[in-house]
């Protein structure tokens, strides 16, 4: 009761503080007439947008050093159209964003397949190439001499923006719009998927998120905003050259975000407010300015890696009441369902009878090692199948092939009558294959309940702008009911509001389970669900699997604990060295000499 109240109260307080701060900003130009001060503010607002737009991509885990290139592309496009082709400013502005977007689309499709440091470096390469292109393409960019006398923006009905005060209004509106946009983006479905991709791209893809498409969209949005900013920047400072877009500009975003606190919206804003005016206060020490930037970055990374906002948030958390971990540890698993309960999967379980999955002669090798050799089996709708085998027998590889992580070298996989061989994991997830990941949680900063609710999201569809503008309430309604069902089924009610990382291990396993169920699978793949569990816990998992099975779900279980598999599964497959060596009832398997050989060695 107290908790509920404090939650709403904090939200109201948040709203009040934000509105108050914003209003403050509106009245600043009335109190400060000094053009220099206003100029500083203008740079700060542009800096906020600069940092936020970079963060949009960083949220997916992709760090880009090409941001300055897009700024330049936008700037030069806008300037060229306005000055050489007499296009009105708003046309140049829009074209700036469009041009940046086109470059981003082409580049993104090429390099977003790279991972980690290689992606970072390829953005660096792109930026370096573009910088040199800027220097060489003299007719368009003016080369090293740059372009002078860029006219200020002229809007229809308003006229041209001349004074610093007028620019203040323009940039304040711009920054406000971008902040609102980014905030809405981050809380929308698509924004959450960005975060999921950043947390664990592999799991995100397996849970039905089309990671390639979302990454490209993130890159696109980020770069288009950079393009717009480029246009504003150029028409504000009235002179640009290739040095305007030097690499230090790309490093700036990183500094703002690191200083302010990566990962949030407030962080980059704080970072911009702190770092942008800094050079002005160091007028006397211009020479040491760059060194100071570096020193600040180093000190923050070493001692305050969460940045200003992150450290503040951590301080706040120290004062909010949370369930003590001892209490959490003493919770035991229980599955509180009455018999006869079943989950209503609605119309997704339309495949009622027959062979739901068929693997035909699957072979997969890595280098010279054959991980799977001509493995064939099929499973009927509503069955529970167990797969056992010694280490290295190929069980995980089999799962990876079925779920599309990589294709088999030979063989086909047929799911519900459809050939799914080689399809991407998110597509296969949409078709109804679910995979349980035990300890890889996607939304580490959300509660258990939210994690389950969000796992529904990839299936509930997305429609671009509608998604962003929609009032989220309606959709959350039905998600809430089904979320509750799954939470209760998996015995997660006692911990519904906790953060996943605080949960005892058994509950984390259940959460992984619940999230897979939320993707509404017809076939669910379990990978070592009871490894390391006590006997009581194993019983509970066994119960839960039984109940889910009764609801009509088809289940495959891979496990080391052969006892568990034998008691739950009427049919068992045995793999060894990538080959299927036995298939049958538990009795048959137990007495099969080949199986005994395989396990005991020979």
């Amino acid at each position, binding site marked *: 009761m107290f908790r509920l109240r404090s939650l709403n109260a904090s939200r109201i307080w948040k709203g009040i503080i934000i509105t108050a701060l914003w209003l403050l900003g509106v009245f600043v130009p009335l109190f400060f007439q000094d053009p220099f001060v206003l100029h500083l503010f203008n740079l700060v607002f542009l800096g906020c947008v600069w940092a936020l737009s970079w963060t949009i991509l960083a949220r997916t885990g992709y760090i880009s050093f090409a941001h300055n290139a897009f700024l330049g592309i936008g700037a030069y496009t806008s300037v060229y159209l306005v000055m050489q082709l007499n296009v009105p400013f708003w046309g140049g502005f829009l074209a700036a964003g469009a041009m940046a977007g086109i470059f981003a689309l082409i580049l993104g499709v090429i390099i977003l397949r790279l991972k980690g440091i290689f992606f970072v470096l390829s953005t660096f390469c792109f930026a370096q190439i573009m910088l040199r292109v800027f220097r060489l393409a003299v007719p368009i960019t003016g080369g090293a001499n740059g372009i002078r006398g860029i006219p200020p923006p002229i809007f229809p009905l308003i006229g041209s923006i001349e004074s610093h005060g007028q620019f203040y209004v323009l940039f304040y509106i711009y920054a406000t719009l971008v902040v609102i946009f980014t905030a809405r983006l981050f809380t929308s479905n698509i924004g959450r998927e960005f975060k999921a991709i950043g947390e664990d791209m592999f799991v995100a893809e397996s849970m039905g998120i089309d990671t390639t498409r979302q990454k490209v969209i993130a890159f696109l949005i980020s770069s288009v905003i950079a393009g717009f900013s480029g246009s504003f920047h150029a028409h504000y400072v009235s002179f640009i050259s290739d040095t305007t877009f030097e690499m230090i500009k790309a490093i700036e975003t990183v500094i703002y975000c690191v200083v302010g606190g990566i990962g949030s919206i407030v962080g980059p804003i704080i970072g911009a407010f702190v770092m942008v005016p800094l050079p002005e206060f160091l007028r006397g020490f211009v020479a040491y300015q760059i060194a100071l930037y570096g020193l600040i970055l180093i000190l923050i990374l070493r001692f305050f890696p969460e940045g200003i906002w992150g450290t503040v948030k951590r301080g706040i958390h120290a004062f909010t009441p949370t369930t003590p971990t001892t209490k959490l540890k003493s919770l035991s698993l229980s599955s509180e369902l009455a018999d006869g309960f079943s989950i209503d999967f609605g119309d997704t379980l339309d495949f009622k009878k027959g062979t739901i999955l068929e693997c035909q002669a699957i072979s997969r090798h890595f280098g010279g090692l054959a991980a799977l050799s001509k493995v064939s089996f099929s499973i009927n709708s509503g069955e529970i199948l167990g797969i056992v085998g010694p280490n290295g027998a190929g069980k995980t590889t089999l799962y990876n092939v079925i779920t599309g992580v990589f294709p088999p070298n030979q063989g086909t996989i047929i799911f519900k009558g459809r050939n799914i061989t080689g399809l991407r994991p998110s597509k296969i997830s949409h078709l109804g294959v679910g995979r349980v990941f035990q300890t890889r949680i996607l939304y580490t900063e959300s509660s258990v309940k939210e994690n389950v609710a969000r796992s529904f999201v990839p299936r509930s569809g997305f429609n671009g702008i509608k998604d962003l503008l929609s009032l989220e309430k309606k959709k959350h309604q039905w998600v809430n009911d089904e979320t509750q069902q799954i939470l209760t089924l998996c015995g997660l009610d006692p911990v519904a509001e906790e953060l996943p990382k605080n949960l005892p291990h058994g509950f984390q396993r259940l959460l992984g389970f619940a999230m897979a169920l939320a993707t509404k699978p017809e076939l669910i793949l379990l990978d070592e669900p009871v490894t390391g569990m006590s006997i009581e816990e194993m019983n509970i998992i066994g119960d839960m699997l039984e109940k889910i099975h009764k609801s009509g779900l088809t289940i495959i279980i891979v496990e080391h604990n052969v*006892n568990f598999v034998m008691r739950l599964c009427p049919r068992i497959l045995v793999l060894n060295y990538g080959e299927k060596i036995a298939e049958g009832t538990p009795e048959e398997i137990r007495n099969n000499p080949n199986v005994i050989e395989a396990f005991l060695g020979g």
Partner: protein
Amino acid sequence: MIELEVKKISLRYGAVPALTDVSITLEPGKIVVLLGPNGAGKSTFIKSIMGLAPINKGEIWHRNERIDRLPVHQIARLGIGLVPEGRRIFSNMSVIENLYVGGFLRTKKEIETELIETVQIYFPRLIERKRQIAGTLSGGEQQMLAIARALMSGAELLLFDEPSLGLSPLMVKEVAEVIRKLNKEKQVSIIMVEQNAHLGLQLADYVYLLDGGRVKMKGTSKDLSKSEEIIRAYIGTGGGTETHRTL
């Protein structure tokens, strides 16, 4: 003096318990084998002795010296060697260079002596191929190299992590021969974990059965050879000590 004493060690990976209250004793010059199915914690056990996986509870003693808090390279200095799972030889270096690295802690003279006295006798094929790049050796030869490398430090206690994994039955026989000879002729004490129960029972003086991170049984290999329990642990039964509600 006991060569190695493991006293009730427990280890968890995050929240998952990998080993619970495991105690093992190794007398000098003997071979102790740990058997058990996958996921039983065998590899974790070997790693914990070598210092590659820190334990949460318990103690590990080597000849009157406590070693469970020492860094890995210092444990190596005490004369403990490891033949790891999957061989893990330095694949981009030659055979002889691998052996030299194995003898990193010793003088050139000691290395050359060891080469003549040990490697030439027990692993003559390695000397033949001493300039060959290790990554191009066959699985069995790599295993021999891994063992020879571990001996180069003059180790008197060898840890083996699933030496038979990935080897053909012929190679497994050869490896078993070498292990047996090293133990008999050079008095090397050995702790071995194996999934291959037959091999383990053949070589062991004393056997421990590990399952679910705990020691379930122990005894001489003769005692355990005919044990039903072992088979049960590996592939399960209808009865047994673990109950589960009937469905």
